[in-house]
C-alpha cells in the first residue's frame, strides 16, 4: 500500500516536470496567461477595497484583510490543484468519449493517472496571486501558518469535489454540467465571507459539500486556533478525498469501453 502511494506520488511529479517543460516551450504565452489570471483576480480585490472604503467598517465581522486572506487561500489552493490535476474537469468527457481506455491500459491508478496528465498554465497565475496578496496585506504570522496548511487542504478539497461531481457520470450518464457547476460553486462560495451565508446554504457548505473548510475554517483558526479544529480540517480533507476516490473507483466498474483511437502526445 505504502509503495503504491509512493509510486503514484512519483508519477504525479513526473507529470508535473513534463507538463512544466511543455509549457516553458511557449514562454510568452505562459507569462501572458499568468499575468492575465493575476489581473483577473486583482479586479475582485479592487471591488472589495471600494466596498470597504465606502462602508468604513466591517462586513459580517470580516475586515478587508480577512476577505483578502480568503482570496489568497482560495487562489493559491485552486492554483495548486490545477497545476497538478488540471484534467479533473475532463473526467466526464473522458468517460463519455471512451478516452479513459488509454489510462486503463497503463499500470497506474486511472484516476490519478488521468487527472495528473494535464497542467493548466493560467493556474500558475492563481497560485502566485495568493502569495502576492498575502505579502500585500502584510499578513500576520498566524495568517501565514494557516495559509501554508490550508492551501494544501484547499487543493485536496477542490480536486475531490470536482472528482466526486464528475464521477456521477459513471452512474447517471453525462454529468459534465453537474461537475462543472459543483466546481464553480466551490470557487464562488469560498471567496465570500462565511457570515453572509445562513440556514441550509451554510449547512450545505459545512457538511455534504465542505466548501467552508477551504477558506472559512482556516480563517476562523487564524483568530481562534485549536488543535481539534486543525485535525477536523485535515480529517475532512482526507475523508472527502477518499470518498471521491471510492465514488470514482466503484463507478469505474460500470464503465463501458469505446473504440476510440487516441494518440497521446
Amino acid at each position: 500500500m505504502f509503495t503504491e502511494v509512493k509510486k503514484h506520488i512519483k508519477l504525479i511529479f513526473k507529470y508535473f516536470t513534463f507538463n512544466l517543460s511543455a509549457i516553458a516551450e511557449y514562454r510568452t504565452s505562459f507569462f501572458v496567461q499568468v499575468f492575465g489570471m493575476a489581473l483577473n483576480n486583482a479586479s475582485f480585490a479592487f471591488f472589495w477595497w471600494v466596498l470597504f472604503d465606502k462602508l468604513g467598517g466591517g462586513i459580517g465581522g470580516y475586515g478587508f484583510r480577512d476577505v483578502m486572506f480568503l482570496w489568497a487561500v482560495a487562489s493559491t489552493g485552486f492554483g495548486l490543484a490545477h497545476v497538478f490535476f488540471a484534467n479533473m474537469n475532463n473526467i466526464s468527457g473522458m468517460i463519455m468519449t471512451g478516452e479513459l481506455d488509454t489510462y486503463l491500459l497503463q499500470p497506474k491508478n486511472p484516476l490519478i493517472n488521468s487527472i495528473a496528465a494535464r497542467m493548466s498554465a493560467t493556474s500558475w497565475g492563481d497560485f502566485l496571486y495568493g502569495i502576492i496578496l498575502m505579502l500585500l496585506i502584510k499578513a500576520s504570522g498566524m495568517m501565514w501558518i494557516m495559509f501554508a496548511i490550508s492551501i494544501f487542504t484547499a487543493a485536496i478539497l477542490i480536486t475531490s469535489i470536482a472528482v466526486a461531481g464528475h464521477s456521477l457520470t459513471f452512474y447517471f450518464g453525462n454529468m459534465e454540467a453537474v461537475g462543472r457547476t459543483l466546481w464553480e460553486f466551490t470557487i464562488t462560495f469560498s471567496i465570500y465571507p462565511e457570515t453572509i451565508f445562513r440556514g441550509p446554504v451554510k449547512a450545505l457548505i459545512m457538511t455534504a459539500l465542505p466548501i467552508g473548510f477551504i477558506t472559512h475554517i482556516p480563517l476562523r483558526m487564524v483568530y481562534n486556533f485549536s488543535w481539534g479544529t486543525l485535525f477536523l480540517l485535515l480529517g475532512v480533507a482526507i475523508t472527502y478525498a477518499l470518498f471521491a476516490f471510492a465514488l470514482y473507483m466503484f463507478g469505474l466498474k460500470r464503465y463501458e469501453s469505446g473504440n476510440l483511437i487516441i494518440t497521446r502526445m
Partner: protein
Amino acid sequence: MSKYLAMAGISIKNSLVYRANVTGRIIFYFVFIFVFFSLWSMVYSGNEIAGYSLRQMIWYVCMTELVVFCSGSGIFGIMNHEVKSGEIAYQLVRPWNYVYKQFASMLGNITFSALVFTLMAIILGMVFAGPLKGFNAAAIPFIVVSFLLSIAMNFFFLMSLGLLAFYFEENGPFYFIYQKLLFVFGMLLPIEFLPLWAQGILRYLPFSLITWGPAKMVVDFSYGYAMEIIPLQIIWCIGAIALAQFVFSRGVRKVNVHGG
C-alpha cells in the same frame, strides 16, 4: 438581409439543442445573484449606500449580469480561433460581410439568452428583492433600447478584441483587461460607489455604459438619464461596429492563403 436572418434562425435552433449548456448557465446565474443577495443583505441595515437601497442594489446586480450573460456569446474565442487556425480564409470568399455575418450567427444565441435570462432576472429580482418602488412602465421602451445597445456594443468590442489575433500572437490580455474594466466599472458596483472625479469620466466611457447604463435606468429611471445614456450608447455602438470593421479590414490584408 434574408441570408443574415437565416443565419440567426440557425443560431436559435443551435441554442435550443444544447440544453445542458443553457441549464448550467441558468444555475450559475442563480448562484451569482444568490451570493450577491446574501452579501448585500449583510451590508445593508435599512440605510442607503451611494444612493441605492438594498432593493435597488439587488435589481442592479440582476440587470448588469443580464447584459453580461446575454452578450457573452463566446465571440472573442470564435474570432481568436478562426484567425489563428486560418479557418477565416474559407469565409472570405463567401458572399457576405464577415463582421455582420458573425453578428447574425450570434443573434439567435443572443435572442435566446435574452429571453431566458430576462425571465430569470425578473423572477430572481422579485423573489430576492420584491417589486421596485416607483417603477414606471413607460420606462420599459427606453430600458429595452438601452439593453439592446449595450449587448450590441459589448459584442462588437469583444469581436474587435478577438480580431486583434491578426496583429498579436497573444491577444488574451486585451480580453482580460476589457472584461475586468466592465467588471469593476459598473458590473459589480454602480459607479456612484467610486470617487466623484472617477464618476465624471466613467459615465462617458463604454465600460460603464454597457453595464451601469441600462441597470441604472431600471432601478432609478428618469427621462433625464435616458436622454443622457442612450445617445452616448448609440455613439459608442457605432464606434464599436466601425472598430470591428476597421480591425477586420486591415487585419485581413495580412492573411496569406496557401491552399489546402
